[in-house]
């Protein structure tokens, strides 16, 4: 499986034809925000009832104007959630990445300390020489 083309934007709103019920606008909004598609659809239907059908032309306008989501935009679910977080707050995502890097740094330091302080291979060598 090959990834998406490099130039495809992951921060634009698409309509998600793969998970669509009608034109994929609600599914696209759900994919963009990370809110469950069911709630987006219920909210849209509720809004249509409250506003007396004013939202329906907006739906079709969005359906015509938005581009279709490329089929392999995300490799897996984790990557999809990552980009949803990026769209919500890039700053927070940058902090999360930093936290992840620090965690790796800490774990690496732990392995290093283990080898430096206990040095099991050296003790084994000494044992063998006795």
């Amino acid at each position, binding site marked *: 499986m090959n990834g998406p083309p490099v130039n495809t934007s992951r921060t634009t709103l698409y309509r998600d034809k793969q998970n669509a019920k009608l034109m994929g606008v609600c599914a696209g909004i759900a994919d963009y925000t990370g809110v469950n598609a069911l709630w987006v659809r219920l909210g849209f239907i509720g809004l249509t009832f409250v506003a007396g059908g004013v939202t329906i032309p907006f739906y079709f306008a969005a359906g015509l104007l938005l581009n279709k989501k490329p089929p392999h935009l995300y490799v897996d679910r984790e990557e999809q959630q990552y980009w949803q977080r990026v769209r919500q707050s*890039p700053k927070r995502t940058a902090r999360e990445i930093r936290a992840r890097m620090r965690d790796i740094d800490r774990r690496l330091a732990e392995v290093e300390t283990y080898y430096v302080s206990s040095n099991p291979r050296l003790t084994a060598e000494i044992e063998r020489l006795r």
Partner: protein
Amino acid sequence: MEEVLAIVAIFIALPWIILHYVTKWKTSATITSDDEALLEELYSLAKRLDERMDTVERLVASDNPDFKPARLIHDREIDNEKLRELDRMLAEKKGAHQ
């Protein structure tokens, strides 16, 4: 009195709220395609390093049984996934024995 309130609500308060959020949305920091590429690279880099670190920890732990890598963040989905698979395999093995 009520009509005045309704007119004020529709023609002043409503556009006010809408324009307020529009300006807020416009002034909020948007990320460029360069930022996007950077974030993508950081994501894959962090993921790769995390996996490499997992492998290194596992190698060290298999060589030295007294080495126990401490996890700062417990109960992470990415770790749980592998543990669940292990559980499933153990259960299958048990089922095959009986």
